[in-house]
């Protein structure tokens, strides 16, 4: 074989050697430090690493980017003295992804009292096909394993993982210009990333009725069981949305659904089932509060969390 196809054999050996060294020397999801990841992959990798850090965590926030930009751990600590970490990532990581992070932080930090899941209603309404097509969850599962939760990645996920792990990226300036710098900033702020003001349209069209995706529900159920064993409470809170007259029926149905949801799980408690309405000026981009409003949101959450923990 070697005599007949020497080039092919050498080529395969080169690829094999390269891939082995690359896998052993870099982060399994992002390929860092050999290259910068996409912002989405980078955020998941950074928060996964923070969840595994040897820090003292009393409360961990998980959720989408409305939580990433909207919950300030330092404000929480200043008011309560509790050690808080923001492990929120992005919408397409999905509740399944947040559950993986939550399980990891709970497993590695026995001192943890509660996991607070903060998302926008849209994140809760995302369907399985949308999430699988996007690939963020599958890539997480392939790179870091499933943390004991019962789920397997798809074939499509393997392709997406392989391609994104290898692809070179220009890390955008609005995310600190490089992944290493982003990680530094996140560590300095316990996972919080301030929103940058932008002049775009921050409004979203909301349907008349809120529909929780059944697949997301499955994951909440799974997380409920997992964290109940660890003795960690799960608190559910919806993020603020821009004020609009057309929101009322949507908000009402959201509140009803989330309350029903928390009633059906022993370890899940809803602490804010109706998204507060903030003025449009509070947002830099859809779902993302500006820093002063993020502080206001955090201060609003503090008494709710403390009451739930009593």
């Amino acid at each position, binding site marked *: 074989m070697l005599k007949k*196809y*020497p*080039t092919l054999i*050498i*080529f395969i050996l*080169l*690829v094999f050697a*390269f891939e082995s060294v690359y896998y052993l020397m870099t982060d399994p999801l992002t390929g860092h430090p050999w*290259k910068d990841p996409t912002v989405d992959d980078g955020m998941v990798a950074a928060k996964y690493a923070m969840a595994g850090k040897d820090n003292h965590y009393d409360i961990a926030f998980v959720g989408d980017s409305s939580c990433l930009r909207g919950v300030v751990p330092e404000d929480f600590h200043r008011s309560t003295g509790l050690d808080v970490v923001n492990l929120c990532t992005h919408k397409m990581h999905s509740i399944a992804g947040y559950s993986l992070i939550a399980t990891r932080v709970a497993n590695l930090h026995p001192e943890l009292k509660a996991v607070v899941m903060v998302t926008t209603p849209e994140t809760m309404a995302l369907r399985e096909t949308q999430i699988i097509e996007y690939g963020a969850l599958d890539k997480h599962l392939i790179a870091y394993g499933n943390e004991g939760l019962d789920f397997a990645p798809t*074939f*499509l996920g393997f*392709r997406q993982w*392989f*391609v994104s792990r*290898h*692809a*070179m990226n220009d890390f955008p300036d609005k995310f600190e210009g490089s992944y290493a710098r982003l990680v530094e900033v996140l560590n300095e702020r316990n996972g919080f990333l301030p929103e940058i003001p932008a002049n775009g349209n921050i409004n979203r069209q909301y349907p008349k009725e809120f529909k929780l995706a059944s697949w997301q529900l499955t994951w909440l159920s799974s997380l409920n069981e997992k964290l109940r064993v660890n003795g960690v409470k799960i608190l559910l809170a919806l993020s603020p949305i821009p004020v609009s007259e057309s929101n009322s029926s949507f908000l009402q149905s959201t509140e009803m659904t989330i309350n029903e949801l928390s009633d059906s799980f022993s370890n899940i408690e809803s602490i804010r089932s109706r998204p507060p309405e903030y003025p449009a000026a509070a947002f830099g981009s859809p779902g993302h509060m500006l820093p002063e409003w993020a502080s206001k949101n955090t201060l609003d959450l503090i008494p709710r969390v403390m009451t739930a923990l009593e």
Partner: protein
Amino acid sequence: MLFNSFEFAVFLGIVLSLYVLCNHRKQNLILLISSYVFYAWWDWRFLSLIMLSTIVDYFIGLKLHQSTDQKIRKRLVASSVTFNLGLLGVFKYYDFFAGSFVDALALGGIQVQPILLNIILPVGISFYTFQTISYSIDIYRKEVTPTRNFFDFALFVAFFPQLVAGPIERAKNLLPQIIKDRKAGLADFEVGGYLIFWGLFKKVVVADNLALIVDPAFSNPSGLTAAQALIAVYAFAWQIYCDFSGYTDIARGVARLFGIRLMLNFNLPYFSLSPGQFWRRWHISLSSWLRDYLYVPLGGNRKGEFRTYINLSIVMLLGGLWHGASWNFVLWGAYQGLLLMVFRPYESFFNAMADQHTLKRWLWNIVFFHLICFGWLLFRSSSVESLTSYFGALLNFSQGIGDIDWRIYLILPILVIQVLQYWKNDHFVLSKLPVIVRAAVYFAMYCLIFGVGQWGQNEFIYFQF
């Protein structure tokens, strides 16, 4: 299902596994069914068009062969041509001509509401209709004997590697390969694998990255400096080449895995020194089709200089229109026709120059490349306004050079390899390098494919034609 997609890799794996297990008859059936599945993946409704075209030309072909009456034969071939061009006319050109007619009336002050069909363009229609037209004409000219086996003919029309973007195969080349028993050996897999790898490199590394320079530049040229605008034109020249020739390479490679050899469609076109040479090297299956079935029947160069120029103009205008129902393609065709006419008296001079490796030859190569680039500027501009705006950007010297996108340097590896291919007159020159160097080059290509390749499922440009 794009060649650079995960779905296609799975599809090809399944088809190939079934193929190697079967005998020749069943192999053809597998290829036919898989070709229809491949096409239906886009839009199953248009499968009926291919089937209709297949049935019509199959029977016309048999009748043409049987008939000895010249009048009947003429009618038969005319009906095949009319039917296929009719399909093209309705699905590709009707709305364009109806809209243009109404616009022309409006210029004269007559306001009419156009009746438009608003049908989406069936992918590949320009390719398979030309293929079936050539089949009927070749039988009429007694250059080809029709096949009696309907399924073999159906496979000739729909063979999936070349169905949606060519090469436009001739029955003389493809049909005998379908009819006769064939075995794909290891050598076929070696060549096929090489072509697929090379085509993938051209598409995902070069073409799709250059698209990131080209698309924003052409959608908003007003903010560009002259250097940026010029670089975007160069980028488009290489994008369209790598996109289309990359597709063809993958198509030829995939066909080769089944033991079928498709024709060469691109022969290092940017090494041309004249439009005549360019059209013998660019989209060869289309330019030779236009030569054999349009230019020659029109009289070619046999009826004097004036008629030759007229014929060249007609052929290139229609060649431009073949690329799409839009005036920019017509303008591009007219420009190519003009180039052919201007260069025609000096064609033999440039042909002789092509054999020399002198500085003069390479300098002229660069000049001629810019003439081709000017054509691409017409081709890529979607309207007269955007074209004038682009010209404005090309003259914008007031803001310095501006930021240059690093992706433009991805042209360099292609250029180096092509110079080698041209120098050695061998498309497979990479496979003749010393073993270690060759493996290192393939490894570098692998790193680029996965390191900087764009895997965002970008369609091939020529699908829209």
